[in-house]
């Protein structure tokens, strides 16, 4: 508990004892029964060489998929170990406010991008280090809508999730209050929510004000966005006080204040305070099984050593490229034929313009303003929908994207970039349908470890192209209304989704509705690879919600 501060009402210890304690009690009461509930011991062909070395659960990956469940499992009294491929860093000392110096936050092992719309990785949504991709996520945390989970019901395209939004709502509420989400209450596009955001929205920067002004003219409703950066100091169990955001605008790299709710300053310290062990620089190469097909442990490389860790249960939370890659490399859970398939990426088209106003795009959270009026546009000729966000941007990220699109070079390039302080953008985040042409496979080319590099095929199909056209037209209208000149669009795709999807049947899905592999009795998968559909919102909050839900389903199965 905090020593000097008095806790404010409504901000107090967001991990609610009334939710946690009965679970903890029941698990602790049955702790004797937990090993017996796992029949592994009797069925092992050979006795374990060192039973003391076996832990209840190994979690691979410490991002939005792995960290929340790691905390939940540790709080339930289980012995849990997390393996993180990247290092553990100290944000206050190691995080320079410099884009290039922050490149260590990205998963920079090479992936091969194929198809008509090759997807960028690295700084585009692939992270490494204790905290995973949340170290450099922009912390946009809109909730999915009811309709996002039932695209097939509503449009006859894509697939439905095997459960409704009711399953996620309690977890959204819990996470929003645990992380200290800043956002509008009531939420304009979902005014009947049971609980509002715990903190007021963050302030609007120049790009957000321009979009707000133009949308008001055009009759488009906007609101300050929900964001997992703190608009006020906030207390969290296991961590203590986290400081408020200072509008340094550097969310797409690391936050050096702990104001952004990356996993390293939220769920991971919570997990460690309950006894979870996090091993950094631990790159998993093998998943071992016994003759019955149960996972018995994993093998990883750490500081030049090969290490084996035995476990009763494995949680694979390595993200939607490394998760299917590990499954393929280990020929695990492949019977559905859907590992690596159904690769979806959010249409993330950006429209940029130059304004007479002084914008200084490096200040404030990048995506200050949101509109979800386009969640189901009335004039849409496509399934699903999208949201709109304003964008402020750092100069290196902006310049490199801009040259890829506009191919400016020489004096025109330097001249255009002189207007950096007068440039602002809007982007969309839209739903994506699965398609047979979009998938991940292992290539013949090897990485430095001698493992095959992943190859990802992505081609925007008719639905994504129609959505892009709709969105580009609307965003150009907004920027014209805002007074922009030299307006240009950048077609891009972000987030890796769907490569080990969840479903009701092992014929067309890799994991069941509880996140458990159909093929393997003690393997759970939890990250954006299990999403049956892409959603029309940024995925991080939903990954975290699934993570807690997966942990609860697993814990309930232990008690059963």
């Amino acid at each position, binding site marked *: 508990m905090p020593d000097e501060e008095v806790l404010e009402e409504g901000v107090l210890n967001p991990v609610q004892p009334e939710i946690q304690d009965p679970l903890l009690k029941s698990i602790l009461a049955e702790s004797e029964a937990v090993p017996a509930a796992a029949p592994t011991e009797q069925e092992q062909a050979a006795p374990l060489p060192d039973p003391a070395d076996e832990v209840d659960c190994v979690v691979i990956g410490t991002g939005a998929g792995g960290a929340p469940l790691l905390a939940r499992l540790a709080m339930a009294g289980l012995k849990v170990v997390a393996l993180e491929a990247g290092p553990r860093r100290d944000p206050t000392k190691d995080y320079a406010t410099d884009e290039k110096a922050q490149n260590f936050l990205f998963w920079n092992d090479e992936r091969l991008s194929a198809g008509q719309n090759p997807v960028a990785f690295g700084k585009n949504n692939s992270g490494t280090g204790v905290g995973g991709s949340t170290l450099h996520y922009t912390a946009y945390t809109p909730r999915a809508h009811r309709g996002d989970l039932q695209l097939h019901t509503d449009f006859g395209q894509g697939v439905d999730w095997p459960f409704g939004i009711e399953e996620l709502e309690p977890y959204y509420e819990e996470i929003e209050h645990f992380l200290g989400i800043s956002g509008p209450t009531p939420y304009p596009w979902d005014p009947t929510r049971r609980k509002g955001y715990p903190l007021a929205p963050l302030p609007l920067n120049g790009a957000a004000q321009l979009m707000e002004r133009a949308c008001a003219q055009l009759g488009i409703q906007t609101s300050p966005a929900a964001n997992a950066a703190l608009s006020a100091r906030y207390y969290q169990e296991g961590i203590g006080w986290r400081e408020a955001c200072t509008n340094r605008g550097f969310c797409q790299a690391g936050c*050096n204040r702990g104001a952004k709710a990356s996993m390293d300053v939220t769920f991971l310290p919570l997990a460690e305070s309950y006894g979870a062990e996090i091993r950094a620089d631990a790159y998993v190469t093998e998943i071992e099984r016994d003759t019955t097909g149960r996972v018995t442990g994993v093998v990883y490389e750490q500081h030049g050593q090969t290490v084996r860790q035995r476990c009763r249960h494995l949680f694979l939370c390595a993200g939607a490229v490394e998760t299917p890659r590990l499954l393929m490399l280990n020929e695990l859970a492949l019977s559905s034929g859907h590992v690596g398939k159904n690769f979806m990426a959010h249409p993330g088209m950006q429209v940029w313009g130059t304004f007479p106003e002084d914008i200084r795009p490096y200040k404030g959270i990048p995506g200050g303003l949101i509109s979800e009026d386009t969640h189901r546009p009335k004039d849409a000729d496509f399934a699903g929908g999208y949201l709109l966000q304003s964008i402020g941007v750092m100069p290196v990220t902006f310049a490199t994207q801009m040259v890829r699109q506009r191919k400016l070079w020489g004096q025109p390039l330097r001249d255009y970039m002189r207007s950096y302080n007068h440039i602002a953008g809007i982007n969309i985040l839209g739903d994506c349908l699965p398609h047979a042409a979009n998938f991940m496979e292992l290539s013949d080319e090897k990485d430095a470890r001698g493992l095959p590099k992943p190859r990802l095929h992505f081609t925007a199909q008719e639905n994504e192209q129609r959505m892009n056209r709709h969105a580009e037209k609307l965003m150009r209208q907004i920027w014209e209304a805002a007074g922009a000149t030299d307006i240009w669009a950048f077609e891009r795709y972000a987030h890796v989704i769907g490569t080990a999807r969840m479903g009701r049947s092992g014929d067309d899905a890799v994991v069941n509705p509880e996140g458990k592999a159909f093929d393997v009795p003690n393997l759970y998968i939890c990250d954006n690879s299990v999403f049956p559909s892409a959603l029309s919102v940024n995925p991080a909050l939903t990954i975290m919600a699934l993570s807690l839900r997966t942990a609860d389903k697993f814990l309930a199965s232990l008690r059963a």
Partner: protein
Amino acid sequence: MPHYPEGTVRALLATSHVTPATKAALEARLHASADYAPQFFDTDTYQLLRAVAARLFPQPERETPIELAPNVDQRLTAGRADGWRYDVMPPDREAYRLGLGGINQAAQAQFQQPFTALDEAGQDAVLELLAAGKAPGENWAQVSQKYFFEELLAELTESYYAHPLAQEEIGYVGMADQPGWTRIGLNQLEDREPTEVKL
């Protein structure tokens, strides 16, 4: 187009507005030695890369231009990647060898001279062909000139705008983020943010 006074970022680096980690990263670039001995490229190819970089980022106003080629050479020497590669492209080292060789082939085909022997107009003419995907040369059968040009331009652009002098040029002072920004709305500046100057 806006212009900003010189020396803004350099002055801020000496203040507590910049964290020690940030200062270290920027000063390393600011004080990088001008004479760099290539490790990956041979001397001729390295000079070719420098010449190409000098046309993609012409800096006639600077006595000592910001050097962009060393970062490429260092990265290729270390074998570092940025997380992805166009599947149609060969591995980065091979792509650079083929692409730079292709630029020389295009210069020979157009002007019967190597790229580095051409005047600025001739060099720009070759780069225009490359940017348009119309450069002659047998190497382009093995490497896509569209994607080579895009990757080369993006890599040099990252190095250029990561440099404190280039950041001064565009009026970026986001590195001076301590203790934070409070005036973040339209047309709101804090004292440490540079104002535009009339030329």
